[in-house]
């Protein structure tokens, strides 16, 4: 742990703000990998063993969030269709780039439609690529009754349909009949097969995401795009983040029905640098007979 930096301590008091920062960055740049590794190992050693009463309670969000719940594009065949569709559109010359007023107007209408307090049904293709587990693909239907109430129905996972409710401000999330709160001992029984958390739900507040796009993104507009796997012609808006922000998606692609202004599909790619955010997902919105409203009444979140 000894380091020959103490001799300059008195000088530190006299140096400028920028000098102190630069000195620190120089130390960081020239630090040996072994030094960093030892520092990491010393910290990891403080993570208690099972049964240790002082164990760190992994927060709900950390446990789920940090498994990098990934909602990923709908497999390679869809990507191929996407590529072919894009090529076709470019060939046809219908690609009109950078028409922000039209794009912004479409986004505004799409956000308004999504904000309506009616039940929405989303087909979501989810790939969980855990830090410590193999890649798993899940198909789910996500029923949203309001911006804070969700029903998740996983088709190929050992998860019963359940109500999901979350309140980012008050930091709680509810699955089925149980509520998990931050720093709550009951978090031990969190339904790990689901890997949903507050942040995921926040990401699924699509209307909020759409609201953000005109502010920090370059928008590219395509007014006659074919939705992959579908024959409908849509508005396609591609939003690319102007400045790096690990908490915001680096790229969002929206497919909006020009007749109803209803968003049909959203593709979101997050920065990979920050493991604490979702990497990517595709959600396709599909009109279906809404679930029995009584189902939502099973739970009334307070």
């Amino acid at each position, binding site marked *: *742990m*000894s*380091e*020959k*930096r103490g*001799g*300059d301590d008195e*000088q530190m008091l006299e140096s400028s*703000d*920028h*000098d*102190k*920062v*630069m*000195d*620190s960055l*120089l*130390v*960081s740049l*020239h630090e040996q990998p072994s030094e*960093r590794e030892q*520092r*990491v190992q*010393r*910290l*990891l050693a*403080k993570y208690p*063993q*099972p049964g240790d009463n002082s*164990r*760190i309670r*992994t*927060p709900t969000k*950390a*446990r789920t*969030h*940090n*498994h990098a719940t990934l909602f990923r594009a709908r497999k390679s065949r869809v990507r191929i269709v996407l590529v072919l569709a894009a090529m076709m559109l470019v060939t046809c010359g219908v690609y009109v780039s950078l028409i922000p007023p039209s794009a912004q107007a479409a986004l505004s209408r799409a956000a308004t439609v999504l904000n309506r307090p009616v039940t929405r049904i989303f087909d979501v293709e989810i790939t969980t690529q*855990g*830090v*410590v*587990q193999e890649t798993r693909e899940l198909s789910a239907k996500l029923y949203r009754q309001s911006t804070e109430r969700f029903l998740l129905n996983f088709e190929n996972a050992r998860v019963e349909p359940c109500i999901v409710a979350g309140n*980012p401000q008050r*930091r709680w999330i509810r699955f089925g009949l149980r509520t998990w*709160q*931050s*720093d709550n001992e009951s978090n*031990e029984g969190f339904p790990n097969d689901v890997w949903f958390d507050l*942040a995921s739900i*926040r990401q699924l507040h699509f209307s909020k995401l759409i609201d953000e796009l005109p502010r920090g993104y370059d928008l590219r507009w395509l007014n006659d795009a074919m939705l992959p796997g579908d024959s409908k012609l849509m508005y396609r808006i591609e939003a690319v983040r102007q*400045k790096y*922000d*690990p*908490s*915001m998606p680096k790229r969002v692609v929206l497919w909006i029905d020009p007749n109803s202004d209803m968003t049909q599909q959203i593709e979101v790619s997050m920065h990979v*640098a*920050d*493991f*604490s*955010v979702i990497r990517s997902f595709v959600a396709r919105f599909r009109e279906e007979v809404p679930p029995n409203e009584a189902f939502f009444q099973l739970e009334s979140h307070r």
Partner: protein
Amino acid sequence: MNQHHDRDRKIFEVFVRENEGALMAYIRTFTRDAQIAEDLFQETMLIAWRKFDEFDSRESLSAWLRGIAKNLIRNAWRKQSNDRLVFDESVANVAQNTIEAMEMQGSDTWLERLSALSDCISRLPARSRELVTARYVDKRTAEELALSVGISAEAVRKRLQRIREQLADCIDRHLGEATG
């Protein structure tokens, strides 16, 4: 139970590895004592992990960690009986802004984000580069360098300070160009 514990521990490890570089750089701005820096680093990481539910994912995780570290540094500074740790709000702001600008580069790792600094060092005159190497790679003190160069330790410190000023200007230009 053990399975959960193992998994959580591995997630914690990822959390630490992803963030330790930038966080240590921030903490070191306030202290040159390696033990104090590491103690603050560990405390920040453990507190952040316990309070992860309070993190708003719309914000920068790195900035959130720096916020926790800043509070710890300020508290430790008030309690200490010596000057091994010096907290200053303006230094905190400069450190925050500089590290944030480096993170805006979009690289995946902290070392990649430091590549702008590497570029700036490579543009220094040869003698300055040698001094940087001696100080930061070989970790020689100003007194040791003074003996080998044949000038006073104070002169070595001033020369290093001028080099760091040059590097700071270079970094500012570099980051300014990158972020537009």
